[in-house]
């Protein structure tokens, strides 16, 4: 039987020691599987749902909560991922204290450039997922062009990709 307090604490711990995205997965996987509160299958499904559902990818834990413990699990998971990012207020306050040093501008600039690299690597990872083929590059290129036009919303782009995906890949 799932203990809601322990369940919440495990999700909170995983989120507190993660840095966005899926980095809280290993901790949750270890803990929930260990207790028998989740199956391996739940994780794969939750990640897949998190990738297409609205909001940050990190909301994949909400689907994990739903799949393992129903609406209560989803609510507890949402609460657990809501708390740690509030620490950004402390980060911003700390930054304000060092902001006047002359090296801070260069430091932030280095980070901003690395962010571009990180995003590039995320694109790469998505395009290299198992089951992806060269046609995926065309989907990505088309989506990029539509996003760059600023005329189509992401949901419109993805709906179009789904329809073309149906036509191209359906066996």
């Amino acid at each position, binding site marked *: 039987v799932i203990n809601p307090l322990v369940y919440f604490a495990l999700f909170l711990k995983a989120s507190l020691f993660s*840095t966005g995205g899926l980095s809280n997965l290993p901790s949750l996987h270890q803990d929930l599987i260990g207790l028998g509160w989740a199956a391996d299958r739940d994780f794969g499904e*939750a990640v897949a749902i998190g990738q297409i559902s*609205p909001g*940050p990818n990190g909301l994949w834990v909400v689907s994990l909560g739903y799949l393992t413990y129903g609406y209560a699990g989803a609510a507890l998971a949402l609460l657990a991922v809501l708390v740690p990012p509030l620490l950004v207020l402390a980060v911003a306050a700390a930054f304000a204290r060092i902001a006047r040093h*002359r090296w801070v501008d260069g430091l932030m600039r280095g980070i901003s450039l690395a962010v571009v690299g990180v995003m590039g690597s995320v694109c790469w990872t998505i395009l290299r997922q198992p089951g*992806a083929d060269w046609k995926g590059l065309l989907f990505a290129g088309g989506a990029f062009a539509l996003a760059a036009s600023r005329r189509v919303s992401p949901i419109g782009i993805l709906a179009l990709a789904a329809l073309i*995906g149906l036509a191209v890949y359906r066996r």
Partner: protein
Amino acid sequence: VNRAADRPTTLALLRIWVQIGLQSFGGGASTQLLIRREFVDRRAWLSADQFGMLWNLCLFTPGINLVALTVLIGRQLGGIRGIAASLAGLLLPSAAVTCLLAAAYKAVQHSAAVHAALQGVIPATAGIMAMVAVAFTQPLARRAHAEGTRAVVLSAAVALGSAAALIVAGLPVALVLGMAAILGAGAFTAWRRPAAEYP
């Protein structure tokens, strides 16, 4: 610098974030794109530089970076109430849709049609992410271009080097960000300029 007269009411802020929360199918890439379109491009409440700066702070915060970004934008535009409205607006509807999708997924997970559609959707999210990366690149590229060849080469080296460190060497993201921060502070700081303006 945001124009105080244009500051949204709490209710308006809530409405904007609900729209983002409901439309951002495709996960983080779509969410990023919509947040930028709304607050930077459409309403100009934040500049591209400010947006990049806020995002950098979020990278040093535990948990979901986009939630931290929501907190910072909410605070800047509406204080504590702005934070609450922004978080509720982004997360409640999108979490509800996520639950519905999880329930629906159970029913259709073996359908060939769903797999085929997803095979189109998932690379499309990579394309959207690429657009987000370009938007982050623009202010950096403009600045480097204005400063000259050295800055352009350095900037390209840090960005491409970071991607290579992640893809080829498989280094952790935090380590790559830390190295880029040190490199940036070393290479972009005008160490020899007189320090008069820095007390």
